[in-house]
């Protein structure tokens, strides 16, 4: 395994404005790394630094064991959030041009393009004008151009925007396939369900600072608060809830149920195990629902941003 990309203490100023403050991130080879943060947090700046579009004012970026150099442009594929194509060029011509800029020879670019165009079933677009394409079609071309030169590191900034659900799924599967083939992927998005689904690691950037990073599972573990969602059928709901409130912190729960039971969330101290809780609850009524509340990526995002 090992690290493919290491970002060490990177800072970036735009005039007096600090866009990135001492950011350190390391990304495992073959992982899908979610780069999260609210708008204007500094994600794009960080991505641009990795792409050598802008230079950091301090700190270093190590790709595959070497400090980042212009030659590494070949090793990176970047699908920016603000993306487009030359309107007046033909699809094939444009894909060839962009591929050659990434260092492929014309023949090799042609072969690979043919493979990808066939694979995504867009082979007959070669001679179309970009202006004739819909937004989703253009996005497909951009995706192909991004991955065409088989880079070690792929950076996708909001890759699913503009795709219908079917094509979004198609692209998602392609991304997962690329990971299988050994690519490392940085994934920046606001769609938390994709993060949940795809990312192994995440980093959360807020107001130019990294406030959280690590394995998604570890982060979830760290964020769980021993809270359970309970459904309890009792004779007197008010009495039961009053009794429990004396000992624990209760809050509202909202799950769908076929019963007319008492629904609540309960947070238990460290010294009480779930088994003990179940025993206590069953003595008070019939247990209809018992689930540990595991924070979603969305919860973690909101919680961390609001606390900072």
């Amino acid at each position: 395994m090992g690290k493919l990309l290491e970002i060490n203490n990177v800072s970036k100023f735009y005039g007096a404005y600090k866009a990135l403050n001492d950011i350190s991130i390391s990304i495992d080879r073959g992982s899908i790394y979610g780069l999260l943060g609210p708008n204007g947090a500094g994600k794009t700046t960080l991505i641009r630094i990795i792409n050598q579009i802008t230079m950091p004012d301090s700190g270093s970026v190590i790709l595959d064991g070497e400090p980042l150099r212009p030659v590494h442009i070949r090793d990176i594929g970047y699908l920016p959030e603000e993306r487009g194509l030359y309107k007046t060029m033909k699809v094939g011509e444009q894909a060839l041009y962009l591929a050659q800029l990434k260092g492929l020879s014309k023949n090799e670019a042609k072969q690979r393009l043919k493979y990808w165009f066939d694979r995504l079933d867009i082979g007959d677009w070669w001679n179309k004008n970009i202006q004739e394409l819909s937004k989703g079609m253009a996005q497909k071309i951009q995706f192909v151009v991004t991955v065409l030169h088989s880079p070690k590191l792929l950076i996708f900034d909001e890759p699913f925007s503009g795709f219908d659900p079917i094509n979004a799924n198609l692209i998602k599967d392609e991304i997962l396939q690329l990971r299988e083939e050994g690519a490392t992927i940085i994934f920046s998005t606001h769609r938390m369900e994709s993060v949940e689904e795809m990312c192994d690691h995440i980093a959360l950037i807020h107001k130019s600072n990294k406030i959280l990073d690590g394995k998604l599972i570890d982060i979830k573990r760290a964020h769980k608060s021993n809270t359970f969602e309970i459904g309890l059928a009792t004779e007197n709901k008010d009495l039961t809830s009053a009794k429990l409130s004396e000992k624990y912190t209760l809050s509202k729960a909202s799950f769908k149920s076929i019963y007319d039971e008492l629904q609540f969330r309960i947070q238990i101290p460290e010294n009480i195990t779930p088994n003990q809780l179940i025993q206590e609850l069953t003595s008070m009524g019939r247990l209809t629902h018992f689930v540990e509340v595991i924070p979603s990526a969305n919860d973690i995002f909101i919680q961390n941003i609001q606390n900072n």
Partner: protein
Amino acid sequence: MNHLSLIIVREFLTKVRNKSFIVMTFLSPLIFVGIVALVAYLSSVNNSTVRTIYVLDESDIFIGEFNNSTNLKYQLLFDTTLDNAKEKTETDEVYGLLHIPNTTNLDELSKRITFYSPDTPSLTAMNNMTDMLEKKLNALKLQEAGMDPEIIDKLQLKLDINQQTYKGQETSKMGAGLKLIFGGLAGYLLFMFIIIYGNMIMRSVIEEKTSRVIEVIISSVKPRILLLGKILGTTLAGISQFIAWVLLIFILMTVASSLFGIDTTSTMASTQQTLDTNNTEGIQDMYTIIMMEIMNLPILNLIIMFILFFIGGYLLYASMYAMIGAAVDSETDTQQFMMPIVMPLVLGIYVGFFTVIDNPHGSVSQIFSYIPFTSPIVMLMRIPFGVPLWQQLISVAILFATFILVVWVAAKIYRVGILMYGKKPSYKELIKWLKY
């Protein structure tokens, strides 16, 4: 292929394949030749209309003096009164009536000759009549004083001052005009080239921004390389278009003049004649003088300096156009930034055509031929009149030093600007970008 050549080829091909570019390449020479042909045709029509003038000479002095010219025909009226003559002139719808009253006093006569016409007569017709009458009156006046006009005529000397530089080169009045044409052409060509292709570069930068393709490109290519490739590619397209224009105009001119028999040079020649009425030398002489003058021009110096100033001046402005393109989001936002570019260009042309013509080596001309933003135009116009080499070299050096500085600034602003979307920056922000 490396990045730069890839970009140059792409820029060149997209420009050249563009429909409006192709249309303009073929349409402009057609329009140009069409206008020249039209002017030539109209002036030849104008020249061929014959104007008839009735003459009522009551003094009987001038009979036999009226020589018909190609455009003017004189017809003498006899045994009629002024009123009748006027009436006849009006009903016959001729050009006008020249009335010479009956008096023997020449001084009085010279003040009382009148030309009647429906509206203000043309200058050439009036000059023609005045010349003729004046000559006769002067001759009569000399006779009155007891002198033989023929002897006086023989005694008249025609003076033509020879013009020579200290180095012994002969110059002529024609030479000054030629120098003006050469210098003016060079300066104006540069001016047009900057305006047309500078704008093209700017639009191509804006297009990359609005289509959002820029961020993909810039992750593969250094902004400086992209900027350079854009400028060079567009320039190549521009030079191709210019060459095509020159060739097409030449071909069309040849075709037009042989097809319609219109001598397109006749417009020039006729203006030359009216300007230079004393010029009685034959066309052949004129050509030899022109050729001699052209040979006398510092041709080699002119060509080398033209190339240097063209490259320096064009690239200086082209990088500024690219900078503006990078700073804004759409073409409508460019207005506020265009002023500082167009102003010095127009000033250069203005100084060139007004001050340099008047005094090629005056202090105003000199100053503006050192200021890098006007020097390409003004210095190019001055060079045919003879500018010391060291002055030219200083001007070129200043131009290229400024060029490097401006390109550095433009590249910085370009680098930041191409990734800024959605707002129109102020000048203050542009200066801030330099520190990024």
